[in-house]
């Protein structure tokens, strides 16, 4: 391909080309006759003579340009001085010399020579521009045509060098692309990037070629060839970026195909997508922006070019989240993937940067992000619906923590790791919905915590309230009120512990909620005590035992009998009940012991003497206070104890 390079110019333009190529050939030959090393001769050649002559000629050209610019009457054709032709010849021969070199390595062999060439091209461009302003006679027309052709030739040379340099990425990473017929997964490519052979960092440009590209671009833009330069730049950078996407294991997925996938595959695609977008945000785009800035001196050009590239790449990436919106089920577990995407898009938006050239791109990205946010809102609302619709009639055995409580609380705890994103999503949602949502009532009482007024907190509390209501409803399924309270305590305690154990969710719920929850729990505890133990305590009341001023043995026997029966029944039943939170369990046992043991001890101390020692005492006083304490300690373990004869668990299966 390099061989064809030199013939390219003339080939494209048969008639003109033929004429010109004769000219080129002659000057080319001339060079060769003079010296065997045309490259060095012109600049550093034998003697200062040549250099001095050249400097003089260039001064004259500059003067000529100055005269043309200051001429008053542009309708008179200017005279073309004699030194113009040698100047044109010089530029032309320099072009030919450069053309003989390998593309992508034309410049940089001799700095002085390169500078001279670029300066000469700038001069030539000024000559052409200045002549353009004048009316032409045959002499100026001839000069204008010749100068214009040489300028174009120079521009083509520069453009080709620019393209070759830009295309260099291919040479450096060709191997790795060819090696991987199938795209790598992100993990593999991360692994590979640690290996020495692919160590070259994107975009693979050594500083020397960047400086040459900068020179070329500057000269092209100066000569009015900005469009060519930008087209070349954009198309090759796009090509490189696309190849880099491929290297990173990213391939386009049709919307239709994505929609057909199983969630597990979709999840993998989401991971892959997040990887590539993050890679763009963190690596590709900053690098690409730097490259633009270092090649193009004008800020506006650099921005526009970067904006175009970022747009081309991002537009493709945005199809994916849109495809995700079309999946058939918004089930609750998908929330976190949506939030991941939402966060990835936020980073992308800040990575692209807001600027005139990226305005449309940003608005499109934001729109997609907004949609993803809306989807996250509806998924979160799925949770509410699933709580509302969870109205099974069968209570959980032994009053244990309900699976719904576990699921919901764990879900919320996880969701709170995304609380900032969820806050943003719900705020946007409420804003677009015209915000009919009521503000949380207790906002002002809440220690002035700003989170209490947040949109997400409102939503979170709504879910917790729904869960509360649902658990309340479920507690009514137990026939035994005591078990209801144990159930309420278990679930309430679980919620409380979850909130306490994570600062994220604690921040969102606020202290007020915790206080309320704790006082509810205390109330359940009291209610349980009352339900289960008040009758037991009545047996041990000192009142009502005396008949005509004397302790009635029969009443006393009755009291002992019913205490024993009640206690045994409670023990048998409540040993099978389940309190999984150790602290709650020991609190319950301590409080029961604190009420029952002293009462029993005092009852025993006061009245045991009224029973006949021996057989009667053995029959009616079945338990010593220490034994009672031991038995209380066996409660709430979810086990069937030795005391129990029946394995029947006291649960209601009715309505």
């Amino acid at each position, binding site marked *: 391909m390099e061989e064809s390079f030199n013939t390219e110019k003339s080939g494209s333009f048969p008639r003109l080309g033929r004429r010109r190529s004769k000219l080129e050939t002659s000057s080319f030959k001339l060079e060769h006759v003079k010296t065997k090393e045309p490259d060095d001769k012109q600049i550093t050649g034998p003697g200062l003579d040549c250099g001095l002559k050249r400097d003089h000629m260039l001064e004259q050209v500059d003067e000529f340009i100055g005269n043309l610019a200051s001429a008053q009457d542009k309708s008179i054709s200017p005279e073309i001085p004699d030194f113009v032709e040698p100047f044109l010849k010089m530029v032309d021969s320099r072009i030919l010399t450069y053309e003989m070199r390998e*593309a992508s390595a034309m410049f940089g062999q001799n700095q002085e020579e390169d500078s001279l060439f670029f300066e000469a091209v700038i001069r030539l461009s000024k000559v052409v521009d200045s002549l353009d302003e004048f009316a032409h006679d045959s002499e100026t027309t001839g000069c204008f045509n010749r100068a214009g052709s040489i300028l174009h030739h120079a521009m083509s040379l520069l453009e080709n060098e620019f393209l070759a340099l830009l295309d260099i990425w291919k040479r450096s990473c060709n191997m790795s692309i060819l090696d991987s017929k199938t795209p790598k997964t992100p993990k593999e490519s991360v692994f590979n990037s640690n290996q020495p052979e692919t160590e070259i960092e994107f975009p693979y440009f050594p500083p020397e070629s960047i400086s040459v590209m900068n020179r070329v671009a500057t000269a092209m833009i100066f000569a009015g060839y900005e469009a060519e330069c930008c087209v070349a730049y954009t198309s090759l950078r796009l090509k490189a970026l696309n190849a880099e996407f491929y290297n990173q294991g990213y391939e386009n997925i049709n919307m239709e195909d994505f929609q057909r996938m199983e969630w597990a595959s979709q999840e993998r695609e989401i991971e892959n997508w997040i990887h590539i977008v993050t890679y763009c945000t963190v690596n590709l785009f900053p690098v690409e922006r730097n490259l633009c800035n270092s090649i193009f001196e004008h800020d506006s050009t650099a921005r526009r070019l970067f904006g175009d590239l970022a747009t081309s790449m991002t537009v493709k990436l945005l199809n994916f989240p849109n495809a995700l919106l079309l999946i058939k089920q918004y089930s609750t577990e998908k929330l976190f993937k949506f939030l991941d995407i939402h966060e990835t898009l936020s980073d992308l938006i800040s990575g692209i940067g807001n600027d005139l050239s990226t305005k449309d791109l940003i608005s499109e990205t934001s729109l997609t992000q907004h949609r993803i946010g809306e989807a996250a809102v509806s998924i979160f609302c799925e949770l509410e619906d699933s709580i509302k619709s969870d109205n099974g009639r069968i209570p959980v055995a032994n009053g244990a923590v309900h699976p719904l409580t576990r699921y919901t609380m764990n879900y919320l705890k996880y969701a709170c790791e995304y609380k900032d994103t969820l806050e943003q999503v719900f705020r946007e949602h409420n804003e677009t919905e015209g915000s009919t949502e009521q503000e949380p009532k207790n906002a002002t009482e809440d220690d002035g915590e700003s989170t209490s007024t947040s949109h997400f907190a409102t939503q979170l509390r709504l879910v917790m309230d729904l869960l509360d209501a649902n658990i309340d409803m479920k507690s009514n399924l137990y026939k035994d009120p005591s078990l209801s309270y144990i159930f309420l305590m278990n679930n309430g305690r679980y919620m409380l512990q979850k909130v306490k154990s994570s600062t994220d969710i604690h921040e969102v719920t606020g202290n007020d909620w915790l206080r309320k929850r704790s006082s509810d729990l205390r109330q359940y505890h009291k209610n349980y005590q009352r339900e289960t133990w008040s009758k037991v305590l009545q047996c041990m009341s000192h009142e009502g035992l005396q008949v005509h001023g004397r302790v009635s043995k029969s009443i006393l026997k009755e009291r002992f009998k019913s205490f024993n029966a009640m206690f045994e029944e409670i023990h048998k039943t409540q040993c099978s009940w389940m309190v999984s939170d150790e602290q709650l369990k020991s609190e319950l046992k301590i409080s029961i012991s604190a009420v029952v043991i002293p009462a029993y001890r005092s009852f025993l101390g006061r009245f045991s003497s009224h029973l006949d020692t021996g057989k009667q005492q053995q029959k009616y006083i079945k338990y010593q206070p220490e034994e009672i304490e031991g038995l209380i300690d066996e409660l709430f373990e979810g086990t069937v104890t030795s005391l129990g004869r029946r394995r029947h668990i006291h649960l209601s299966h009715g309505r």
Partner: protein
Amino acid sequence: MPSTEYQGISAPLTNLGRSLLPLRRDQVHSMESPIGGSPSNEVELESFQRQVADRFHDLASVPSDELLSLPWVRKLLDVFLCCQEEFRVILFNNKSQVKKPPMDRLIADYNERTVKALDVCNAIRDGIEQIRQWQKLIEIVLCALGGDSNSSQRSLGEGQFRRARKALIDLAIAMLDEKDSGQAVAHRNRSFGRHNNSSSHSRDPHHRSLGHFRSLSWSVSRTWSAARQLQAIGNNLAVPRGNEVLATNGLAMPIYTMGSVLLFVMWALVAAIPCQDRGLQVHFNVPRQFPWAAPILSLHERILEESKKRDRKNACGLLREIYQMEKCSRLLGELADSVQFPLSEEKEKEVIQRVKELKLVSDAMKEDLEPLEKQVREVFHRIVRSRTEGLDSL
């Protein structure tokens, strides 16, 4: 608006459609009363059919030299967006019906079609991007030959001609690359032989890269085919059976209508704009009694005819502006081939004239290409939105 020109033809067609509608409506009505259908529903459905018909009559009233022009394609997309919007309202007003069979199945079918249309939108957007690249090359030509506003005073020198020639060749190659790839390779050399005497350009690194650039820049997967996608969109698109119409309270009709509108609009887009594996072999079996059938079928026929014209057969897109772009740039290229310097006044005039023509095309592109792209995006987003709304309500 050119719609008035065709009033004479469109009116009887509309009447034909209308005369059939009450018949169907009566059938629906007799069955639907016990279920509790509302009369407003019928009015709404009938008005929908009429609106769709009116819109397509308006589109079909385009003179042949404006068919498939950028403004016409934009209008086509507007029509789609309007129809889709009205359709959405109908579904919204009949929420209760939407979840019931067979309505749920019909809607799911339609949704399947729209998802397929999303990929068409993406491919079309890529195609528009491609046209924009051509447009940039044309701007170089105009910049060189004084067609752009900034340099209108420029003299037409040899250097400028060389510059323009180069851009024109790049353009010709870029446009060739868009055509069916198998054809293009064979075609390229031939047309090169015609345009210039050397084929060395195709081996130039720059030109090769332009060719490669294209294959990498699509948003759809490599194996995706617009032709297959269109067929898939039209797959099983059948006029609802009587019992379906009855069971859905007449709602099966607008769903069928939208399916047909979607198919036609996507087909016409693929016809107009370059995209991966174009192909127009789609059957439209719309019964003529639908008031919108006549204009759609007539447009379908006219576009097919257009695609069969000798000079359009190998076109990468039937968009009128692409054709003009190709023609103007080819003529200008031929003219540039023939000029000698110094330029004769006669030649100069001719060149100025050709440049003017090219500028007209370029201006039309500049004006409408970006709005068209936005519209394609709008179609995409509307479809996505209607889908997500659907999920919300179900």
